[in-house]
């Protein structure tokens, strides 16, 4: 069977949005996998109901494969699951109130499950990560230097990197180019030429904005849950 993946992130405890996406997926032909690329939790609302649903899918739900995102990293750090590190990034950017708000949105009974989530998945020649191979908080956008995007792809030796941290939907394809390098050492000089490999970075969106990826044809479809968007119109090969 030709695989079609659904890629979701940034639910931030919003069960209603997740339910909307699940209903969309039931009506969409051929979706074989659902990947939730982190930020399951957030500081705005109680996240327990969503976490319960992700852990125990309803009958007919597409079973989600989840990884942790930036908000989980902050929560787990503050709860002592990351050694000596605390939620420093959150504290620095949004203050102590945000840290306390986050702690109050997740029942501690979910922490072990959240701590068991992986940093990312490698599926075929694709990496599925909340941020990037560099860091869970790495904010890759269509504005990020292609040199940095190429580095993030190279670190994992994958052809496609699906990222969620920016919350944006984009598909940036590296289509060509190259570089010359000359190395001089005690044995003399040598020249090297290297071409840019054909690789892509795909921002999958957040919340109601999610992405379908057709593995066989390498097409992405940027969708909004609950809208009547036809995946064929938004496809990008």
């Amino acid at each position, binding site marked *: 069977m030709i695989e079609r993946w659904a890629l979701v992130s940034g639910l931030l405890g919003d069960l209603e949005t997740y339910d909307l996406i699940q209903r969309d997926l039931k009506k969409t032909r051929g979706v074989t996998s659902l990947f939730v690329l982190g930020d399951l939790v957030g500081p705005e609302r109680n996240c327990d109901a969503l976490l319960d649903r992700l852990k125990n899918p309803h009958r007919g739900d597409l079973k989600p494969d989840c990884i942790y995102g930036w908000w989980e990293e902050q929560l787990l750090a503050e709860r002592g699951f990351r050694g000596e590190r605390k939620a420093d990034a959150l504290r620095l950017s949004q203050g102590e109130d945000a840290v306390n708000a986050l702690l109050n949105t997740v029942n501690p009974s979910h922490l072990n499950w959240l701590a068991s989530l992986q940093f990312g998945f490698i599926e075929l020649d694709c990496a599925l990560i909340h941020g990037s191979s560099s860091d869970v908080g790495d904010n890759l956008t*269509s504005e990020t*230097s*292609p*040199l*940095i995007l*190429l*580095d993030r792809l*190279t*670190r994992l030796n994958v052809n496609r990197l699906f990222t969620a941290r920016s919350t*944006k*939907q*984009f*598909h*940036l*394809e*590296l*289509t*060509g*180019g*190259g*570089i*010359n*390098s*000359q*190395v*001089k*050492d*005690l*044995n003399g000089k040598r020249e*090297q030429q*290297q071409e*840019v490999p054909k690789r892509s970075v795909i921002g999958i*969106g957040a919340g109601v*904005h999610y992405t379908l990826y057709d593995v066989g044809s390498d097409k*992405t479809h*940027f969708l909004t849950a609950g809208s009547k968007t036809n995946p064929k*119109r*938004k496809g*990008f090969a």
Partner: protein
Amino acid sequence: MNHAIISCLHANLPAVEAVLNDIDRQGIKTITCLGDLVGYGPQPNEVVELIRKRGIATCQGCWDEDIIDGLNACECSYPSQLAERRGHLAHQWTDDQLTDENKSFLANLPTSLRRDRLLFVHGSPNSQHEYLLPDMDAFAALERVETAGADILFCGHTHQPYVRELRGGSIHVRLQNADHDSGQREELTLPMRKIVNAGSVGEPRHGTTNATYVIHNDATDEVEIKEVAYDVGRTCQAIVEAGLPKVFAWRLSHGFEFAEQAEDASHVCER
């Protein structure tokens, strides 16, 4: 003006003295050290004290960091259990020998030094443990220099001196956003950048027993890789007398070694 860059001294006093004499003979006043003052070698206090006495600007190496913070690097550090055991022995011995004052000096070294468009680090701008090998992916190499905001990146850690010039680069992209039906195309022209690896004073791995360092002229950007012979036998004898693993003396006397460098040098340490 010429300035000299030295790295990876590894507690080898005869090698350090020979290199500093060579630099002094050329009248070079500015010296920058890229760390790893200690580790493997038999004279950690003597080498640290010489660098302190000379007031040489120094950034912290991976060994300097490990002596202070303890060994907690990820499994990338050693290619075998034997190499790891030897490394731990050397770590313990160095930790026992170093005075509190010298440990405090190592603890307070910066991880990088910057002079205008020149950046000095031990491994890479990302980590003291990352190897920038001469043949690593050229785009990844350029990314390290460019992201750090430098024109020339001086590093060590590999113990292999080289100068790598990255030029004539470009990347073509096609972008599709959710609200655009057709992809827009762009071409990014990449800047010319240079990586200069100073090799190793105290534990060379480039094929001969000579210590290496580099001289950079900041007016012309010319870089010269220098080799300096020193009394290898004196260091080897001191290694054996100190009770350090004899293989450290053997590899110094042969000018190469197979151990203590991760097999997958492109691996980025997750420490």
